[in-house]
């Protein structure tokens, strides 16, 4: 085992290590500063987007629109909307059912013909 006194430290190693540590520290500070600026920018952008969203929403209330203020009017309009949907959907589904039945009948006839 070598004596401590026999271990030679290269010249200037202290300074080189010291300057390397300083350089790495400066890089880390720069990275932190960039990260902080980025987050600040994004958080400001988010606040602006939120403010614009609320502004547009409020402004859109002024457009040509029948405001349903009475419960009776709301009921009439809601019933109208739901009835229209239901009638159209059920009409369509009825036709699909009819087509399905026809397909089954045709298939049965075909099977009988093959036999």
């Amino acid at each position, binding site marked *: 085992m070598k004596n401590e006194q026999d271990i030679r430290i290269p010249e200037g190693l202290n300074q080189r290590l010291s300057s390397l540590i300083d350089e790495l520290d400066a890089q880390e500070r720069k990275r932190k500063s960039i990260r902080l600026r980025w987050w600040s920018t994004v*958080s400001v952008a988010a606040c602006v987007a*939120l403010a614009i969203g609320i502004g547009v929403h409020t402004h859109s209330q002024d*457009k040509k629109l029948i405001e*349903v203020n009475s419960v009776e009017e709301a009921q009439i309009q809601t019933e109208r909307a739901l009835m*229209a949907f239901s009638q159209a*959907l059920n*009409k369509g589904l009825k036709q699909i059912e009819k087509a399905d039945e026809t397909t089954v009948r045709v298939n049965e006839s075909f099977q009988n013909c093959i036999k």
Partner: protein
Amino acid sequence: MKRFQILLFAFILSASAFAQKEFIDKLGNIDGVTSVYVSKTMLKLLPQLDVKELNLKKISQKMDGVEILTAENQNAAKKLKSGALSYLQKNKYEQLMEVKDGKDNTIIYMKQKNKDYSSFVLLSADGNHTGFTLIALSGSLTLEDIQSIR
């Protein structure tokens, strides 16, 4: 991570500020088009929708809003129809069904925004092309709910 969550929340909040009355906001300014909007709050205030043979109350509680746009003349009908079709295509609404009854034509579109939230849109044109109606429903209702109304 905490900062990211706060930012994400702010962005989602701003997005939802745009989401209400999407059809009225987009198409309600066309001349000759009348718009009606029933909000979620108003839907909750509705008394028992106790119309014979209909089952509306349960469904209205699942709804977030109702938009109805009606075109009252031929020109408005043409603009509303083309605007609606363009908007639905751009926003990836899927066509569920088209029903032609004589000269009248009705199309139903749907968009599932997540597991518990869907939008349904009904476009109805009369055979003379003088009238056109768009009805949009949104909320946690399903096709089965709509079918069960009548």
